[in-house]
């Protein structure tokens, strides 16, 4: 993948909407290209600033008097002052969805720090003396993935056959990539790029599972 191609796909990469094969290619490019990594850093910084903007801003004046005056005008009346179904506003499924959302949040946080893109470096990398740390991190990821898969199996009726097939396809590609990376790491255990790739591929798998759990929650 060239730098220009990376630039074209960087939005999808940071938004986590890139197809699996392209994701892997782009990850490999980033591991070896400082210029593109800087572009990625700037983009993530922009998105972090956007996300940190306050959700509320106070207007310079009280807007209610102007609104109140307009509500009194002829023709400005509530569309309808009565409707049926008031007593059943909060269906049980909403409460159930909230419980599932909380469970998913707890599940994905269980393994510790190595989930957000900015925390990829928390995944043990480098010398063979850190091999035990890598193994533990892999176990943590595997536990989180298994827990999410178990959550999915508990409600198979929530997913269409088409969605299930797409998930299985994605997971197969990711598991294949993990196997290849582990084999390469066995040859070169101190490779920072390979360790980075291993961590991000685990994250990718978790994200796929998280998305599916979200999709199936109501």
């Amino acid at each position, binding site marked *: 993948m060239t730098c220009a191609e990376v630039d074209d796909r960087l*939005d999808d990469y940071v938004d986590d909407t890139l197809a699996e094969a392209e994701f892997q290619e782009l990850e490999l490019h980033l591991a070896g290209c400082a210029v593109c990594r800087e*572009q990625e850093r*700037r*983009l993530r*910084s*922009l*998105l972090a*600033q*956007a*996300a940190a*903007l*306050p*959700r*509320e*801003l*106070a*207007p*310079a*004046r009280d*807007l*209610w008097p*102007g*609104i*109140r005056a*307009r*509500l009194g005008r002829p023709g*400005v*009346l*509530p*569309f*309808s*002052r*009565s*409707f049926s*179904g*008031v007593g059943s*506003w*909060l269906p049980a499924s909403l409460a159930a969805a909230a419980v599932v959302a909380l469970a998913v949040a707890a599940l994905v946080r269980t393994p510790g720090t190595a989930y957000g893109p900015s925390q990829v470096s928390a995944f043990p990398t480098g010398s063979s003396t850190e091999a035990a740390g890598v193994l533990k991190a892999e176990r943590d990821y595997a536990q989180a993935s298994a827990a999410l898969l178990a959550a999915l199996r508990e409600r198979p009726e929530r997913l269409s056959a088409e969605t299930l097939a797409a998930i299985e396809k994605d997971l197969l590609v990711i598991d294949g990539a993990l196997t290849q990376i582990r084999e390469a790491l066995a040859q070169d255990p101190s490779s920072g790029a390979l360790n980075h790739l291993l961590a991000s591929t685990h994250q990718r798998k978790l994200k796929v599972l998280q998305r599916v759990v979200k999709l199936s929650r109501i």
Partner: protein
Amino acid sequence: MVRRAQAGDLPAFEQLHRENVRRVYALCFRLCGEASLAEELAQDAFVRAWQKLGSFRGESAFSSWLYTLTMNVALSERRSRRRRTSRIVATEDPSVFEKPGDTRRPEVGVDIERAMDVLPPGARTVFVLHDIEGYRHQEIAELTGVATGTSKAQLHRARRLLREVLSR
């Protein structure tokens, strides 16, 4: 509170306004970029909400319903304003963002809210909806009446321009 307002209880509607006005105003301000216009749009949104209150069925949170309605009000105003005037309000060239006599030190950088002023309206809308409000391209396409691909292209354009401005 919502049920009371639906029954025509004005103090209850005022309470709903008090609880939501800062969020509604923030959305309007970020979509249009002008404080006075944002105030007008926020007022329009609450008047529209009062008129449509009977159609709120409680299938989502009242605040979500109100924000969607606000977005429609703000986007509709933008469309009609665009029809009324051909005034150019934005540019592809971030250098025009440097106003003559601007004494800010370049290394200080610019605030993202201010940097958004450089964005053309379409790119600004998509950036606000996608990167600040968290909508997906499909949802933005439905809200704004553009194709999903157009939404993605506008976002790419917005992010590129903002990175250029903010990295100075």
